[in-house]
């Protein structure tokens, strides 16, 4: 395996051996370690000193189930923090099989030209993007397939990234060559745009295999993990049958589905945009629409879908829970075809759907459209791709738009908009939003919940165990992102011990290590600590680990609760001595 260094200033590429310190890293741990080692935390995220790192997970490219994730890391222009965002699709597995452990893109060209990095078995080269520059993602992917062949892996940015807008994501193509698998969060597409890199094109012209140190152990682990995933209710039923949008009805029933820019926790139109509605409508319409669709080859969970227009022709893939909610309930929109069109625009322009939906909701609050006005929402979102002044405001995300229009109900943490779980209704996730290294993010794993810790040394007797559990969950999340597995395996492996062992064994099988399940927590926390240190060096303090003020004074119906978790609790999340304190108190 090699590292590929790409200097955009000199337009040079070079393969280098893996330094020993990176040998056992992949995915998120690798992108974050390289950023920590090589990027000045105080640099401008869109300047020459930031770097953009792409890394397949440790087992990505093997036949381990649901393991085709690509981590992308850098300093985020949206949050100013370190960022790792990962995506499925086909390129990650191809990169891994070509022997590429990471691609490090550095510096930026002196001109405004866009380039394409082409990678195949013979090496890598930078080519002028030429007429491919400026293209929307659907046309871009189609042209690349025509020129480079079916099955070409594509990692690319749309016009939003080329314009260096803060809500620009990075697209990975899916098995049908659609651009819908996004490393969306945190504006890393703008970093790619700032480096003049339109796309990375991966051509697997020679079939190779990811080296596996201990095949027997790997196979044993793979089988255990597959058994866990195919027997657990969540990973074999709910996600496969209904997709992630099954959560629309669940969160609505919980009173925690953020509605009309986080002003209510229940949406009267929830049923119309639910996973059940997606499933039923897809069945009725026929055509190319499908549920139970894998986002990458070898996924046994298959939570993705393809949404068809009423005539059965392709509209967009996928409509996921977060996109469905952000562009639907959060904008008061209850029409799946409108949501599909908004999702399509995001995919084509190169925008994160969560941030885009929260931005539209803030714009609606500002009076640019009525809540629920789907056609106006479509018009507004199209402005982004046109690069109009209004489009650039909206393309810079929720917080930027809230500032531009004087909206105080701005649901962001560290500049990044919240996903689809209302923290006033689900307090535990509010703690996660406040304290992750990534800004408001639902994928960071469960942290210590308010019901566990009390303030001022008054410690619940069960605190030690619960705090350890919570921390183990967070650490496991980092480990999953590092291994290259889909985060949804967490449901199965946290419930089925053999599945957890299986995951660790696949990693040991690939690396030749002897890590135990305890090492998962140790390593995960170690990697997490590095990310936190980067943020501290960038100027972040515990005062940044807070939810927006309006949530403290605006009651959220139907529970009519405010965010009342004390700051001391939030600060305790990263107090790694909390267990010792509990022991002393107990």
């Amino acid at each position, binding site marked *: 395996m090699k590292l590929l260094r790409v200097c955009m200033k000199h337009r040079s590429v070079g393969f280098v051996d893996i330094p020993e310190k990176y040998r056992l890293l992949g995915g998120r741990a690798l992108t974050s370690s390289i950023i920590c080692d090589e990027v000045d935390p105080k640099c401008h995220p869109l300047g020459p000193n930031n770097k953009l790192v792409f890394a397949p997970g440790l087992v990505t490219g093997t036949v381990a189930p649901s393991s085709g994730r690509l981590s992308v890391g850098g300093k985020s222009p949206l949050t100013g923090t370190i960022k790792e965002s990962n995506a499925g699709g086909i390129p990650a597995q191809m990169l891994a099989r070509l022997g590429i452990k990471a691609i490090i893109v550095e510096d930026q060209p002196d001109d405004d030209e866009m380039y394409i990095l082409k990678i195949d078995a013979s090496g890598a080269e930078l080519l002028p993007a030429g007429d491919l520059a400026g293209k929307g993602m659907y046309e871009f992917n189609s042209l690349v397939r025509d020129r480079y062949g079916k099955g070409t892996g594509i990692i690319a940015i749309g016009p939003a990234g080329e314009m260096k807008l803060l809500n620009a994501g990075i697209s990975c193509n899916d098995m049908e060559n659609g651009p819908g698998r996004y490393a969306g969060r945190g504006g890393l597409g703008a970093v790619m745009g700032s480096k003049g890199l339109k796309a990375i094109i991966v051509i697997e012209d020679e079939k190779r295999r990811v080296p596996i140190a201990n095949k027997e152990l790997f196979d044993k682990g793979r089988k255990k993990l597959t058994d866990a995933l195919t027997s657990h*209710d*969540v990973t074999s*039923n*709910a*996600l496969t*049958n*209904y997709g*992630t949008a*099954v*959560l629309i*009805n*669940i969160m609505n*029933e*919980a*009173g*925690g589905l953020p509605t009309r820019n986080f002003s209510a*926790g*229940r949406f009267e139109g929830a*049923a*119309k945009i*639910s*996973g*059940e*509605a997606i*499933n*039923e*409508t897809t069945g009725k319409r026929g055509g190319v629409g499908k549920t139970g669709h894998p986002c990458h080859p070898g996924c046994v969970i298959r939570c993705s879908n393809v949404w068809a227009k009423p005539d059965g022709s392709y509209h967009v893939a996928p409509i996921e829970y977060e996109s469905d909610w952000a562009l639907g309930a959060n904008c008061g929109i209850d029409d799946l075809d409108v949501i599909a069109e908004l999702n399509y625009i995001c995919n084509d322009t190169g925008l994160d759907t969560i941030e885009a939906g929260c931005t539209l909701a803030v714009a609606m609050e500002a009076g640019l459209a009525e809540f629920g006005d789907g056609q106006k929402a479509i018009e507004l979102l199209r402005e982004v791709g046109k690069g109009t002044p209004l489009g650039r405001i909206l393309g810079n995300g929720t917080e930027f738009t809230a500032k531009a229009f004087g909206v105080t109900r701005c649901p962001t943490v560290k500049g990044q908009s919240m996903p689809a*779980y209302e923290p006033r*209704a*689900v307090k*535990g*996730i509010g703690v996660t939003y406040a304290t992750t290294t990534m800004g408001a993010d639902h994928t960071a794993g*469960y942290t210590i*919940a308010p*019901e566990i810790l009390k303030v001022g040394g008054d410690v619940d007797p069960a605190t030690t165990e619960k705090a350890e*559990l*919570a921390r183990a*969950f967070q650490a496991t999340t980092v480990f999953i992102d590092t291994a290259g597995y889909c985060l949804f395996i*967490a*449901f199965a492996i946290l419930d089925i011990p053999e599945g957890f062992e299986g995951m660790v064994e696949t990693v040991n099988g690939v690396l030749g290590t002897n890590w135990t399940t305890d090492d998962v927590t140790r390593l995960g926390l170690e990697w997490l600590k590095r990310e936190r240190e980067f943020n501290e060096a960038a100027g972040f303090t515990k005062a940044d680990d807070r939810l927006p003020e309006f949530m403290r004074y605006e009651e959220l119906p*139907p*529970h009519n609760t405010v965010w009342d978790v004390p700051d001391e609790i939030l600060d305790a999340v990263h107090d790694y001595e909390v267990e010792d304190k509990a022991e002393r108190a107990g």
Partner: protein
Amino acid sequence: MTHTLRVYLYGKFRSLAPVSDATAESYVDLEVTGPEDIRGVIRRLGIPEEEVSHIFLNGQYSAATRKVKAGDRLGIFPKDMALLYRQYFPVEED
């Protein structure tokens, strides 16, 4: 003064409601005549308890042992729709 409990049904449980369209709200109103827990309501609906996953009573993630009363909103999801990290949803009990 209402004497009924409204039970929202999801997935395959929708067939027990007058409106069982997946794109609409499916619910039944049940008379509450005396003390009863969620388990009793589930039984009354003819749903085997082992087929139930998430239960929400007035938006609170709940154990089947909680008591219901007239005016409550109950939501019941089947096993094949289970999708919550239980760590975020501590089960409310009476």
